């Protein structure tokens, strides 16, 4: 098998990216959240088609219309969003695309042998091949996913954060498998944000940033610090507004949370947010940040602990309670397309959705007042839209996100919760959102801000709570908030330890 090379580019999240993968090598791909790693992989595996660029396999140009075509060409992916069918058993899933047959029917005994064999190779001997996938915990599912990929006899195997939910012991087993596959002449593409893993496995590394390949180098030729510099990059600087002087800590907090627990995912979280403060939530993705925001908004059932607004205890049974005047909360949800907006509905209908009661008398909407408030919001946030009656789905991502924020500003909230509001939007809009948040804070709002982008936490926040495994691991404030400190505390390393590595515990589950 000769060397394999691929070229393509031009997908929104990926601009003119190049990558070459050789047989018998493990190629590490590094990059921050949203650097384009996952898109790259989706293109290679035929899940999405590139707008421009080309892919070359064994010297021949190829294109894949769907995952089946990519599989046929020997390219197999292990997806971050798992591609397992929940109702089918482990063995059924492992052999799903090409089960062993006898007389044209699936041979369940042979299938089971294959599955057991593959599970053993992937290090999941403890998984019962007949167990339905939906009953397995995430870490086991990931092993099944790996076993499923092995059965397809791939020539190129792509792993996207394939170890993110595994325990340290499982990771060692998987690594052994991957190294053996390398010896067998496979080309492996290993995508991760964990440098320790890449350092151990990879022969070459490529760093992605903002959808571009910013450098490929032999493993071991660059220090961790150099790699981090490449990942973070400095060629665009966020336009962050200046931070005000630290507020006196003796003022009463607008939002106070005491010992919040939920379902083993939140463990005794306590925090305070004062009027005028932007408090960041940091940590690796999936450490309970999302759950914390949802529980504050009354969405989660069975929370224990107290939520106080202006020193008064409140009980919230849902968003309806949370947006009451006495509470005045707003939540900018994680996924604007499914949780924030009704895409086919008009800009106007979306904007006034949360605050409609304000313009209504006896349930009848006062159109004039509604339109006036909407026009105000549109000009305040500089939303670019062709009138208020166009469907929100036709706007750009940045403008959509502005509408989600505007929708909640129309309720005049005093406590604003944001769940990664800048994901997937352009740099210009990001800067506008930073300015807006600071302005809202200056006007007296208390803001709790979760972001997966460490740069933003550094640039925007007065304090940052770093969550680890559902609990507040560390609180950084003022000058302590640096990217280095955020990374090391996200990985739960001791204070001051700058070396990013994999957490000792299996805490990185999503």
């Amino acid at each position, binding site marked *: 098998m000769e060397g394999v090379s691929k070229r393509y580019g031009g997908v929104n999240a990926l601009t003119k990216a190049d990558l070459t993968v050789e047989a018998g090598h493990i190629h590490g791909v590094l990059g921050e959240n949203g650097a384009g790693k996952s898109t790259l992989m989706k293109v290679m595996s035929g899940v999405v088609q590139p707008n421009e660029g080309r892919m070359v396999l064994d010297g021949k140009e190829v294109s894949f219309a769907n995952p*089946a075509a990519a*599989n046929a060409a020997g390219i197999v992916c292990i997806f971050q969003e*798992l591609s397992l069918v*929940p*109702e089918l058993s482990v063995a059924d899933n492992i052999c799903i695309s090409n089960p062993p047959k006898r007389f044209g029917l699936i041979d369940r005994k042979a299938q089971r042998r294959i599955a057991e064999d593959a599970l053993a190779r992937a290090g999941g001997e*403890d*998984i019962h091949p007949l167990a339905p996938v939906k009953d397995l915990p995430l870490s086991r599912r990931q092993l099944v996913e790996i076993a499923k990929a092995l059965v397809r006899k791939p020539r190129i195997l792509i792993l996207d954060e394939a170890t993110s939910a595994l325990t340290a012991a499982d990771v060692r087993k998987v690594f052994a498998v991957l190294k053996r596959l390398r010896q067998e002449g496979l080309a492996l593409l290993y995508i991760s944000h964990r440098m320790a893993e890449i350092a151990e496995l990879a022969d070459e590394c490529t760093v992605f940033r903002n959808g571009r390949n910013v450098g490929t180098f032999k493993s071991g030729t660059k220090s961790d610090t150099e790699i981090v510099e490449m990942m973070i990059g400095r060629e665009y600087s966020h336009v962050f507004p200046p931070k005000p002087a630290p507020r006196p800590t003796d003022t009463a907090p607008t939002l106070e949370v005491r010992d919040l627990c939920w379902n083993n995912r939140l463990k005794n979280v306590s925090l305070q947010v004062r009027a005028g403060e932007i408090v960041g939530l940091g940590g690796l993705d999936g450490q309970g940040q999302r759950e914390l925001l*949802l529980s504050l908004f009354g969405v989660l059932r069975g929370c224990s602990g107290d939520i106080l607004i202006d020193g008064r205890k409140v009980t919230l049974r849902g968003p309806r309670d949370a947006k009451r005047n006495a509470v005045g909360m707003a939540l900018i949800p994680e996924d604007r397309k499914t949780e924030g907006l009704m895409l086919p509905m008009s800009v106007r209908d979306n904007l006034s959705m949360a605050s409609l009661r304000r313009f209504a008398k006896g349930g009848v909407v006062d159109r004039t007042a509604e339109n006036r408030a909407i026009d105000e919001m549109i000009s305040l946030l500089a939303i670019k839209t062709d009138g208020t009656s166009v469907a929100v789905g036709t706007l750009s991502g940045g403008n959509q996100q502005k509408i989600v924020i505007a929708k909640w500003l129309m309720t005049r909230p005093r406590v604003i919760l944001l769940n990664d509001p800048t994901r997937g939007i352009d740099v210009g809009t990001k800067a506008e959102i930073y300015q807006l948040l600071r302005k809202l804070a200056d006007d007296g709002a208390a803001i709790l801000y979760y972001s997966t982008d460490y740069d933003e936490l550094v640039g925007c926040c007065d304090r940052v709570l770093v969550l680890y495994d559902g609990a507040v691991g560390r609180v950084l404030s003022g000058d302590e908030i640096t990217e280095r400190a955020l990374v090391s505390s996200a990985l739960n390393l001791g204070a001051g330890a700058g070396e990013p590595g994999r957490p000792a515990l299996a805490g990185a589950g999503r």
Partner: protein
Amino acid sequence: MTDQALPISHGSDWRYRLGEHYGTLLALAVFVIMFAVYALKYPTGFSADMVQTAASKGVLLALVAVAQTFVVLTAGIDLSVGMILVLCNCLASYIVIGSPVMTVLGIVGVLAAGLACGAVNGVIVIYGRLQPIVTTIATGAVFFGIALLLRPQPGGDVNEDLADWMTGQLPGGIPTAAVVLVVIMLVIWVPFRKSMLGRVVYAVGSSEQAAYMSGLHIRRAKFAAYCLSGLLSAIGGIFITFVTYTGEASSANANAYTLNSIAAVVLGGVSLFGGRGSAVGAIFGALIFRTIGDLLFVFDLDPLWQPLFLGVVLLFSVCLGSFRLFRIRNRLELFG
């Protein structure tokens, strides 16, 4: 996520096999208990004749329930099964007659008609990308209209020897209908379940996204499911002709079979969300549904109360799944 490697012994296969067939086994158990009670209370006690009556009533609905199962497994729904059944009934009253050869040819013709009806549904739903509910309501109207064209008035005839044999008893008092049903299942369901086709149908119903990511032929599988549904409805249509000796385009019958097929499927442990359950369960679901009526009869419940009681039992059984709601901790999951 702090799960440790659980020591699972591979000797515990039975646990998973039980889990896989839980719905079916539960339906079987409920049916056996109900039927036992019925047999005990039956005026003349347990007899071949009693089984015979119960079987011929049950098999008809069972066939339609199996037809419905195929489509429901893909997370769709077929509201035209009853109409296909009636259409095939009317068609059979013309062509399933005469010499043995003619009769066989007639049966093949009716089966082909059912298959074609299913194929029409499949093409519109898959390639026309319309919702299965509306599509099958609309095509159901067409099928029923054709049935009415064939038989504006009830009438026609059927090969009586065959009909008598099919609705009669085999030596030993075993009802032929039940045996035929078992044979049909062995010929159609078992190979389906064990083939790649069946695997893909389950995968599509469980998670279309994952099935696509795994590179499966989604459309082909869905299409086959609709075709099989039409085929099974056609078998039901032939069988009803054997029972009644006539063809009748009765909209009441058509609607009742459609609606009862959904009830039977749900009672038999097939998930309306797709991907879970088995046609065997659906058969027991159909038998349970029929036995409820019989039970009310032997317990001397006022016949006027029977439909209400049946409705309430049905409503209650579809609500059983709601117990899972108590376990949901994140209210957003309610809207998934």
